[in-house]
């Protein structure tokens, strides 16, 4: 198990006495809630990647910006690492604590500060839940577009840290396309504003750089998001196929017809059965694959597009096409997809969710590769796929109580991600690298590119106190664990620092 921070490979962490840090912080920030007893720390030992757990040295639960500033300044002075956490729903271990670090939990910053329907923006504290934004905007006919499956629980601060996606990304973009401005507190305890309520801001696009930076560059304390008018109507078509490849081709045919669906999702047989058993969404359990295609917009256009998509699906060889009759049925169709993860969870004691992206044309090859790996490792894999934007979520089923099976599942997952990179894709589309995919980063980026990432980090956090060991692997780690190519036992670019 290489996921826990390994000081030999991931960089040394300071040996500082917990009682000293606690006393220092208590004195510097008298009103700050600090948890330090083991039973109080226990609930924070993991995020959504619950196979991995570490007790943090301390948990800080600030309520004011001044407390965050003081915390950062003192941690910097003491050389104590800070891991920032939102709702803790992340699936890549981005908020996995460090036993020698402070876990900064932003959940008390949970207020919606302002919804301005004329400017179509909402100003939020980072602990506001994703779904709560759309709920607050609903009375004005507006909503917040990115909708990760965890949207009832995940927070907007975490969404910014991970550049979260959802099922509507192809048409409406990721978090980076929907955030206008963030307020940040740096490791030095300074405040800065990135972005603007206008459509652009002077200088470099540091807002884009911070979005998805996994808490490595600063702490986001306020977020201004763009709100969109709710589409007049949304309709969903469900098509069944007797062959996964046919379903994959149908996706391309829909795009080729000049249509950008609001959502375009694919599930394979195992995922269909799991979802149907759990939610009773009315899915055709005999199908090898289904496509869910949501078309949204102005009523007249949506009707035209539904007719076009229906004919495309027929030509693509769909064995059945159903259009949701009303909003209730539409919600049911989606419920199966949105609950696919817990549904698969019922079929197996444990599952491991992958997040690779691929060019869509490579789908048949990648699905075949996954099936082969699945057979090789003797572990079942259910495939759930944001088909429109090429983001796959293979779910590897395993039983952690069986010795070695977690490691087998991890190895299988690693192979899937390496296959994604091989066909020109990425190891993560929306869940982030965190700690989970730290070794696969070595397959996606060469040492020079990783050195550039470290240079970016050094511009904002030269002492590497913000979330150390996450997101960007050290070159030493890549040399030891990654797929980095080593010639004649010599590391590439020996001149580069090996932090």
């Amino acid at each position, binding site marked *: 198990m290489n996921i826990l921070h390994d000081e030999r490979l991931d960089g040394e962490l300071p040996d500082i006495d917990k009682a000293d840090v606690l006393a220092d912080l208590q004195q510097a920030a008298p009103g700050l809630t600090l948890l330090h007893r083991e039973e109080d720390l226990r609930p924070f030992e993991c995020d959504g990647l619950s196979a991995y757990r570490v007790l943090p040295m301390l948990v800080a639960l600030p309520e004011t910006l001044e407390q965050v500033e003081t915390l950062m300044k003192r941690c910097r002075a003491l050389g104590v690492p800070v891991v920032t956490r939102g709702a803790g729903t992340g699936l890549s271990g981005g908020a996995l604590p460090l036993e020698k670090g402070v876990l900064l939990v932003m959940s008390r910053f949970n207020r919606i500060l302002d919804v301005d329907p*004329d*400017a*179509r923006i909402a100003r939020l504290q980072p602990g506001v839940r994703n779904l709560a934004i759309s709920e607050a905007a609903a009375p004005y*006919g507006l909503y917040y577009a990115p909708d990760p499956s965890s949207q009832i629980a995940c927070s907007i601060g975490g969404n910014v840290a991970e*550049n979260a*996606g959802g099922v509507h*990304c*192809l048409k409406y973009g*990721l978090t*980076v*396309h929907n955030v206008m401005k963030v307020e940040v507190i*740096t490791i030095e305890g*300074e405040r*800065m*504003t990135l972005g*603007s*309520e*206008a*459509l*652009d801001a*002077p*200088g*470099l*696009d*540091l807002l*884009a*750089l911070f*979005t998805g930076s996994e808490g490595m560059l600063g702490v986001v304390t306020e977020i201004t998001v763009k709100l969109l*008018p709710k589409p007049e109507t949304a309709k969903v078509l469900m098509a069944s196929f007797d062959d996964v490849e046919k379903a994959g081709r149908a996706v391309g045919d829909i*795009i*080729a017809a*000049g249509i*950008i669906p609001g959502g375009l999702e694919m599930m394979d047989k195992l995922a269909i059965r799991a979802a149907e058993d759990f939610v009773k969404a009315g899915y055709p359990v005999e199908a090898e694959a289904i496509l869910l295609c949501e078309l949204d917009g*102005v009523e007249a*256009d949506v009707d*035209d*597009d539904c007719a076009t998509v229906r004919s495309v699906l027929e030509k693509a060889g769909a064995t059945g096409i159903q259009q949701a009759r009303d909003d209730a049925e539409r919600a049911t169709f989606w419920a199966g997809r949105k609950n696919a993860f817990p549904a698969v969870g019922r079929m197996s004691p444990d599952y491991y969710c992958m997040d690779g*992206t*691929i*060019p869509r*044309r490579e789908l048949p090859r990648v699905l075949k590769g996954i099936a082969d790996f699945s057979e090789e490792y003797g572990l079942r894999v259910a495939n759930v796929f944001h088909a*429109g*934007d*090429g*983001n796959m979520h293979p779910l590897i089923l395993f039983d952690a109580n069986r010795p070695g099976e977690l490691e087998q599942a991890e190895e299988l997952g690693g192979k899937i991600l390496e296959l994604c990179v091989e066909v*020109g*894709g*990425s190891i*993560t589309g*929306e*869940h982030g690298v965190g700690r989970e*995919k730290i070794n696969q980063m070595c397959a*996606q*980026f060469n040492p*020079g590119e990783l050195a*550039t990432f470290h240079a*970016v980090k050094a*511009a*904002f956090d030269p002492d590497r106190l913000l979330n150390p060991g996450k997101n*960007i692997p050290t070159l030493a780690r890549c040399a030891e664990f990654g797929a980095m190519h080593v010639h004649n036992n010599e590391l590439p670019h020996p001149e580069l620092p090996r932090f």
Partner: protein
Amino acid sequence: MVETRPQSTDQDISEALAERVCRATAEGSPLRIAGGDTKAFYGRPVDGETLSTREHRGITYYDPVELIVSVRSGTPLAELEATLADNGQMLGCEPPHFGADATVGGMVATGLSGPRRPWAGSVRDFVLGTRVITHEGHQQRFGGEVMKNVAGYDLSRLMVGAQGTLGLVTEVSLKVLPRPGASHSLRLEMPLADAQARLAEWGRQPLPITAAAWHAGALHLRLEGGPSSVAATRERLGGDDLDAAFWTALREQTLDFFSRDDTRALWRLSLPHNTPSLALAGVEEADLLHDWAGTQRWLRSDLDADTLREACARAGGHATCLGTREGPGQADPFMPLEPVVAKYHRNLKAQLDPKGIFNPGRLYAEL
């Protein structure tokens, strides 16, 4: 992947570009990166030897079904747009050219977007990946030819609008969009206050608007989408038909408003949605052209920079001076940064370009 009509001029000179960058770093001699030199006015003048990307050109990947194109930075923007149009697609950000020689690299470096921007997104919103030559002459790749990619820091989008100050962008992968099924432009005579009120109201409705500009007593709108919704909205809004060439002239700044005979400086005011008219001494309604539903306002004025910038900052926006749009650049076109933000700009520049060879001073004197 479709055949992309390879041009006889297509070639990959990235090795030569990398060698040139290496030499510049070794000698500590700055480079002025240029494509078609059509947007030189947009920024500060750079004192350095010109490094042209124009021969590094060609589309390296285009698959209309994937909605992705990869293109070398010296490729003429017009050539890219023609290839996309052949396949019923377009660049969603509708970038201005400002001349026949405009390149893809110039679009990325300046990050300038056209009338569709508030509805479709800006240049950076469509960038999926880049290939960059670093100060050490290494060719590196960030992002890629996939829609979603959150591995590592988003250096691709950071390059957009950086004006070549962080590295030499040699190739970019872009998301492209299908051309709309129907398009209709119209002109509605109404005072500015009415236009502002109606745009605020329409902004909350799912209308197929993809451009909105007010000037000289009339609101100009472009409706795009499915034929049914465009027809229905056209019926609902009324007004006179408008030639779609208006939007090209607005984007390329060839409308009379932008006339070079007017010797006053041209300013770009970037403001939040629904910002009321700024009270600026001596500024008449005719001195302003409201694009982007009022979030991008063009101003002809000799007002001093501080007065203008303070007014914009109070409204939550900023102001950029384009001067006369002639010559190698302006003295201080961009609004000064807040001290903390400026500090991290300098830190980033020092990390990615320690010898200061990439377009030094192009954005700000100290970058």
